[in-house]
């Protein structure tokens, strides 16, 4: 084996980004979060031309390209449309395994993402097969709420 030439030794340096930002939610998303925080309810906004209720609430509909209007309370129950089960540890996320999925709340026309708790994940394949049945779920609000999407999660209404 050849002795490495120190002059030719490749150099690698570490890099790290840690910039701080301040994101403005805007008036509509702020009300959406404050309704969760203060009134424990999930709100959508209605699209005037189509009548669709967009959840989470937003200021405009990108499909019809118009401002939204009326505020509409939705849920707290809904249907788990699609889901995924996270079995590996990811920075900033709960210890695995856990379920997250998109739920269309009653009265809404779009789905909202959140954790789905109360699912027996002893056997992930078996749990996944059961969740394919689009179970009904209910939004559960945290006792301490900060005006964040994580102020609530979903739980199965009936065991699967």
């Amino acid at each position, binding site marked *: 084996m050849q002795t490495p030439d120190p002059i030719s030794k490749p150099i690698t340096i570490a890099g790290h980004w840690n910039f701080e930002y301040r994101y403005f939610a805007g008036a509509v998303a702020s009300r959406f979060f404050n309704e969760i925080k203060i009134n424990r309810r999930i709100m959508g906004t209605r699209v005037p031309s189509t009548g669709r209720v967009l959840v989470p609430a937003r200021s405009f509909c990108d499909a019809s390209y118009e401002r939204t209007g009326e505020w509409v309370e939705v849920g707290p129950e809904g249907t788990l449309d*699609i889901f995924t089960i996270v079995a590996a540890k990811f920075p900033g996320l709960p210890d695995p395994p856990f379920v*997250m999925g998109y739920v269309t709340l009653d009265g809404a026309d779009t789905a909202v993402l959140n954790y789905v708790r109360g699912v027996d994940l002893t056997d992930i394949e078996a749990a996944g097969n059961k969740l394919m049945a689009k179970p009904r779920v209910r939004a559960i609000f945290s006792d301490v709420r900060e005006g964040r999407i994580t102020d609530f999660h979903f739980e199965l209404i009936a065991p699967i």
Partner: protein
Amino acid sequence: MGISPNSAYIQGVAISVTWADAERSLPDLIFETVTGALSNAGAKMAEMDSVVLAAHDLVDGRSLSSMVTAPAAGAYMRDEIRLADDGLVAASLAAARIEAGESEFSVVAACGRASEGDFQRTSQTAFDPFMIQPLGLDEFSLSALRLSAWLQRHPGLEDSRRRAGQARARRAGSNGRALKSGGHAPNLWHPLRQEEAPCMADIVVAAILGPRPARVRIAGTGHSTDSSNVGDRDLLRMPSLAQAAERALSSASMQSRDIDLFELEGATLFDEAYALEVLGLAAPGQGFATYADGTGINPSGGGASGWCYPAMGLVRLAECYLQLTGQAQGVQVPGRLRAALATGFSPVGAQSHGAMVLVTA
């Protein structure tokens, strides 16, 4: 629609798939790949008058990444456009400039070096900071959610799913341009399986475009963008992919049955296979089976040969070019190939799609 007086032709391409090669910096890899594309085209950099580069700061870990990467693609004292978008979009823009008579010869390059960062983690930061980031979705979890919807409609297709995975691995094994060592698979979420992951790699791809008649002409392009709100999207219908392909075929005055070869981009095996159903090339539920058994469907091995955003749409296009010109080597599809369709997508979660139709001139 006939052939434009300023049609854009692909003059040559090069693809580089490596992993953590400490002997080469990212600009080194770009320089070598662009040099390879020029050689493949029988052209010199002095003939080029424009450069279109697709790179992404978060992937490259360099703010304004293209400041250091564009010169390596030949941008010095040339008309250069930088895109934080998929490489196929860069090719589309270069072709449009040539067709408009704005450019004679253009270098198109795209790069993503997965070994220098953590693509899966940085992709989380591309999502909305209020609704999605706190819950940790990444570029691959959208595929898991889509698959859960597909399995609700099409349970019990285990055999075709397994055969598609085997076919993809076999094709990647025959592809001399595929990553041969190193790389890694991102952690996939259920119901995806690890063997359905892409092989994260350091990828640079380049193409030389120009109006000089060559063996392959760009006959049509299409683009489409879906809602930014994932909860609003029809994850199964994938309308932006369908619309982009329809527009590319329409502008080429062709239909999908006229296409001999498809290179369809996807973040996972499922997304590659499911694209066949979206484009009407496979019956509902038959995407995996068609992927496994079809001829001229991702013969490159797709993401199993190496994957890193934002290079992949241009890789799919370059693979089509190599097939149409008989240069695909170990994965060359037999018989005369006249037309090919390549697709690419942009984050977040394939919100935007592009498609391009190539025909032999």
